[in-house]
């Protein structure tokens, strides 16, 4: 028969010779295996936006830490003769109505905002995770009671206990963090409970249970890795949300007590007189927006990088760049 004699393109069979199979290492792994976190790191590194946001954030944090140290002015030193000066060489961001240097104040405020953002996001999250896993794992009446408490807690306007806490602890950064924790633990608890429920009846959990693992061990060792990406992503969205909330509380008048300040406080002070001294409103607003923006974008990039399912779909620009670089075109010119 014709097709047995020649392969495609009409090459006669006699020209083919069998390969010596004994010398082939088909089982050998050529590339090093990539662990989950290595993969994440690789994907993040390729994402230019992520790198940009990371650098922006790092710059902002460094400024917040060091700018007040090297500033010639104190953040709380008033000087009534120099009130409401526009930005100049001696006062880079100008001065406020009582003559305090805004460059120093903005970065001192950024310190407070960042601290509130970080701790105020992690604390409620940890509480929510713990409560949520207890509710989800043990189920039954424990779950019932916890979920009803959350239902009711979500119906009570947070303003009541925020004010309660702020009055009790006196309006410092600590009080705001506690207020944020009390305000925000319910959402993560609900979400985390759902995730636990989702994995509770899976085979690997059952296997661990059969082996006699304790509940907290199963949650920590077996379920947590499955939802870690999810947790990191929501955490990165919680940080900007906490900063945002602090700013809104400051606007309502429940912020940090002066002379200490926060970015939200500065922006809301400036919002009252933006028609006369626009810079006093614009500068803190810009800084706070940049901080929230970079956190938010970083969170977005983390979500893409942490989700192995998105691995093939993600970072089209990175792929495009690699393809173009591979085909010999100039890098950096695209986009």
């Amino acid at each position, binding site marked *: 028969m014709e097709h047995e004699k020649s392969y495609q393109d009409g090459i006669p069979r006699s020209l083919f010779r069998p390969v010596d199979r004994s010398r082939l290492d088909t089982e050998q792994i050529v590339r090093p295996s990539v662990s989950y976190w290595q993969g994440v790191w690789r994907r993040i590194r390729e994402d230019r936006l992520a790198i940009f946001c990371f650098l922006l954030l790092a710059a902002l944090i460094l400024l917040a830490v060091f700018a007040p140290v090297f500033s010639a002015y104190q953040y709380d030193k008033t000087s009534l003769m120099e009130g409401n000066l526009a930005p100049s060489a001696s006062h880079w961001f100008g001065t406020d109505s009582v003559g305090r240097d805004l460059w120093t104040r903005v970065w001192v405020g950024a310190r407070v905002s960042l601290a509130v953002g970080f701790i105020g996001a992690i604390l409620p999250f940890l509480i929510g995770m713990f409560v949520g896993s207890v509710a989800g794992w043990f189920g039954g009446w424990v779950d019932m009671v916890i979920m009803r408490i959350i239902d009711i807690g979500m*119906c*009570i306007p947070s303003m*009541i206990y925020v004010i309660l806490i702020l*009055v009790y602890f006196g309006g410092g950064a600590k009080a705001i963090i506690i207020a944020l924790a009390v305000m925000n633990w319910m959402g993560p608890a609900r979400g985390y409970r759902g995730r636990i429920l989702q994995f509770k009846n899976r085979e690997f959990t059952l296997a661990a249970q059969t082996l006699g693992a304790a509940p907290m061990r199963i949650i920590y060792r077996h379920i947590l890795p499955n939802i870690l990406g999810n947790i990191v992503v929501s955490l990165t969205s919680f940080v900007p949300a906490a900063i945002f909330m602090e700013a*809104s509380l400051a606007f*309502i008048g429940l912020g940090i007590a002066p002379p200490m300040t926060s970015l939200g406080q500065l*922006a809301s002070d400036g919002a009252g007189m933006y028609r006369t001294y*626009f810079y006093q409103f614009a500068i803190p607003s810009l800084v706070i927006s940049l901080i*929230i923006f970079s956190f938010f974008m970083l969170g977005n990039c983390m979500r893409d990088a942490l989700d192995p399912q998105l691995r093939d779909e993600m970072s089209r620009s990175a792929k495009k760049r690699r393809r173009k670089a591979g085909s010999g075109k100039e890098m950096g010119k695209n986009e």
Partner: protein
Amino acid sequence: MKKYILRRFVISLVTIWLIVTVCFFLLRLLPGNPFASTTLMTQDTLDKMMAYYGLDRPLWEQYVTYLKNLLHGDFGYSLKYAGRSVNYVIATTFPISAQLGLQALAFGIPTGLLLGILAAKRRGCTADVGINLFVIICTAVPTFIIAALLQYFLAVKVKLFPVAQWKGFRYTILPTICLSLGTVSGYARSMRTLMLEVDRQDYLRTAKAKGLGTFRIVLFHQIRNAIIPMITNLGTEIAGMLMGSYVIEKIFSIPGMGAYFVTSIQGLDYTMVMGLVIFQAVIVVFANFIVDLLYGVIDPRIRVA
């Protein structure tokens, strides 16, 4: 179905009762008293005031009296504004906040959904990037900053809209836009994610394999499935919007409910806070109830027996 509704109704009542109780006692935990901020008040006057409003009686007695009045639909009188009943305050301010909230929702939800669908369908294109950017700006910039900026440029500089106050439809446009930005960006973001998630499902492949047109697929298969998870928060969101936003109301000097909410808590106006909280709780519970029923309509798979 009737049994389900009845059960839900009873649970709702219990929830509201619990909220009333918790709030009542939480408020009393706050240090100070409602008249403390009024200066130049002698101890004698203060005692008389406390006695007049029944605040000198034991706490449980006050609680029982309050519940009794509540069952008659009487929220009591404000402790700050002499002679003004809480019912009157709600009746005058709620319509304003509700109108603003409804306008913001009516504008925000469809716009957000449309933007989300557009971004998902044009994934990776200019439209997607633009929408993403818009969403990020809305999320990154605190509301009061956006509101103040819009007010400054659109009302003060360009004079397109009135700067503030509440005198007609023209006055509502700017606050509505500011209030709805959060909704728009939130809905656009989740709609985009959900649309892309649904895009990977088998039933969508089936629809494509059947040879349905893109429009039909998106409208009847993709959107309908993508929208379900977003309904969960609808109840709370509607309630939150109806109650008004303190920030927006303050910036545009709108005589809504949001302002009362904050000032009355700060001023320890017990009855006013309680009235507003209960009013809000009823709306939240009712809205969640409707949303639960809506679930069954939109997704027959989770219809209750």
